[in-house]
Structures are given as structure tokens and as C-alpha cells.
């Protein structure tokens, strides 16, 4: 069965510091991988996605993620965090020709001034 694990429930980083949010998935074939962000009172906004090709994908707001098949991971990174990045981040996986997503439990990011 497909599943997604986000090991970190809460992360706090200082503004300007680098960020890495972890995501591990379980799926037998090549997954379709997504990162979404949810700010308070807002919906789930797509940050980036991986379907195929280059394993390093760029997204909005300066985020990037790297697909590592050998580690079943799709970690989200940002070189320098801004206070406005404080939000909850969700990793999701879909199968080929998917009709639904499986979500991780989310990581809440706090940014210290």
C-alpha cells in the first residue's frame, strides 16, 4: 500500500537559515510526488511536483526538492528561510494515472526572527 511519512511534526528555524523538510514514501512503482503548503486559514497551495525526468525540481517561493529513488525520499529544501514561510507543509504521493493522493501528516514550520 502507498504511504507517506513526514518524520518531523514541528521544525523551528531562524530567518535566513537553510531548511530541509523530510518526506519518505512507500510505493512499488515510480511515484508522482508533490509538496503543498498551507498557511493559516488558507488552502493547500502547490509548491512543486515531480513526475519524471530531472530528480531535482524547482518550485515557487524559492523551494526545491530532490527525488531519491534509492532512499524513497522527496525532501523539500530552501537555502534561506523568510518569516513568511511559516506554515504547514504536506508531502503527497500519487500513483501513475492516479485518481487520489496519499498525504503525509504534515510538518509545521516556525521561523524565529
Amino acid at each position, binding site marked *: 500500500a502507498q504511504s507517506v511519512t513526514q518524520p518531523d511534526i514541528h521544525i523551528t528555524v531562524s530567518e535566513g537559515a537553510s531548511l530541509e523538510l523530510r518526506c519518505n514514501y512507500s510505493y512499488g512503482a515510480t511515484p508522482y510526488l508533490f509538496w503543498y503548503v498551507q498557511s493559516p486559514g488558507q488552502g*493547500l497551495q502547490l509548491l512543486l511536483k515531480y513526475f519524471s525526468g530531472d530528480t531535482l525540481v524547482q518550485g515557487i517561493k524559492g523551494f526545491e526538492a530532490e527525488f531519491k529513488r534509492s532512499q524513497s525520499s522527496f525532501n523539500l529544501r530552501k537555502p534561506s528561510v523568510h518569516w513568511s514561510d511559516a506554515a504547514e507543509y504536506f508531502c503527497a504521493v500519487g500513483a501513475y494515472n*492516479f485518481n487520489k493522493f496519499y498525504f*503525509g501528516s504534515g510538518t509545521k514550520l516556525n521561523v524565529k526572527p
Partner: protein
Amino acid sequence: EPEVTQTPSHQVTQMGQEVILRCVPISNHLYFYWYRQILGQKVEFLVSFYNNEISEKSEIFDDQFSVERPDGSNFTLKIRSTKLEDSAMYFCASSEGRGETQYFGPGTRLLVL
């Protein structure tokens, strides 16, 4: 930029009452979805809808739930007789096609008393 909208943003209801959650998907999208997130838990798939019929549903989506596209723009989720455990955030999503990126609305927070 087109977006998915949902109404109401919050709904409080008594156990046993019927509720209808409304969504307006992105206009050229053909696939529609409902997900829910119980507080502190993962976002879970409920149902997908295409061509005026359910294409896939989860085990959560029992006979108390129904979906409908009553006109060319709205997509609704009805819960016939709400239970306390139906309290959750309900997200609507839409995509251009199967296997395409899903775009999410801001959610409706449902509280059943």
C-alpha cells in the same frame, strides 16, 4: 490565477443533521475530489468524481456521504446525518485530468456538536 473556492469556510451543526459543503472547481477542470483532515491527523481521500459519476471512493465514504455536480460550476458533498466523528476540515480539489496535479480549495471546517 484560477482557484478552487469553497463555502462556507466554517460550519457548526448538531449531530444527526444534514450538511452540504459547496465547492466551485477551476472552470476547465474535469476531475473533482473531496478530502478531509481530522484535527491532528493526515489529509485523507474521500472520493473522486468524473463525468457526473464517482470514479473512486475510500472506505470512509459510506452511505452517509454523497456528491453531486448540480450545475456547470458547483460540486457538493452532502453528509446526511452527521456524527461527532465527522468533525474535520473538508478540502475540495480539482484537476484537468486523471493523473494531473490537483488544486485544492481553502477548506470548510465542520464542527459537529
